[in-house]
């Protein structure tokens, strides 16, 4: 079951957010997004110091899990971060995140002349294909 998805650009702005089965209403969504971004930033620093072997700071981190959810993480070379929160028993979704990036994000956002970099994404062309992609999984 998928709870929500976040896409952060390289400045830490949440350019896209969508929730499906989220059971808890956020008091302040923007605060939550900032908290998540900040947390991932320190988590990555923590991982590269803790790692027993040299680790790629972008692709090294896969996911983490708590008793109620699992966070899947995919970061592109251009520092765009794709994050999905699911229930803890979901298998690895990084391949799906990669697919969203290459076949939807690049096609419909990056190649879209109207899209201004660093702004939030609100095109149907992008939002519509994402939904069925996850419908099968929920």
């Amino acid at each position, binding site marked *: 079951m998928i709870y*929500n998805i976040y896409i952060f650009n390289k400045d830490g702005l949440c350019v896209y957010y969508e929730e499906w089965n989220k059971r808890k209403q956020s008091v302040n969504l923007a605060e939550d997004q900032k908290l998540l971004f900040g*947390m991932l930033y320190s988590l990555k620093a923590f991982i590269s110091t803790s790692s027993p072997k040299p680790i*790629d700071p972008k692709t090294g981190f896969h996911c983490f899990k708590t008793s109620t959810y699992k966070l899947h993480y995919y970061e592109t070379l251009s520092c765009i971060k794709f994050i999905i*929160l699911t229930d803890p028993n979901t298998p690895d979704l990084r391949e799906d995140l990669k697919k969203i990036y290459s076949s939807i994000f690049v096609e419909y956002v990056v190649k879209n002349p109207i899209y201004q970099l660093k702004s939030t994404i609100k095109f149907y062309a992008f939002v519509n294909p994402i939904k069925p992609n996850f419908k099968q999984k929920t």
Partner: protein
Amino acid sequence: MIYSLYILNKAGTLIYQNDYGPTEKLSHNSYIRLGSTFHSLHAIASNLSPVSGSSSGIELIETDTFKLQCFQTHTGIKFYIIADPNHPGLEEILHGIYELYTDYVLKNPFYEIEMQIRCDLFDYKLSRLLKLTTD
């Protein structure tokens, strides 16, 4: 292969750390910093839960080079180990370590609770447990 073990008290202070693999040793202060970083990450992760009701903190982190498994006791003490990405049975190992902690640390009259763990018997039993599980 298990690389390291960390034990944090309920305030997030590192009270025990040991490396087992051929990993590069860090300075004592770096270990303390890593411990408290994990403590805060753990707390934030529980806050970010999309589900209502309380969530535990981070239980597992998966990366290219290692896997981190964490176990928090009811008294707020956190044990976490860093191991190979495909190491099986980490939860059982953490329970074993917790058991050793209750025996050889808490029952030791010379151990002050919440403070650094310096107990020979604990070290010895721990190395035996970890050897047992890595062979």
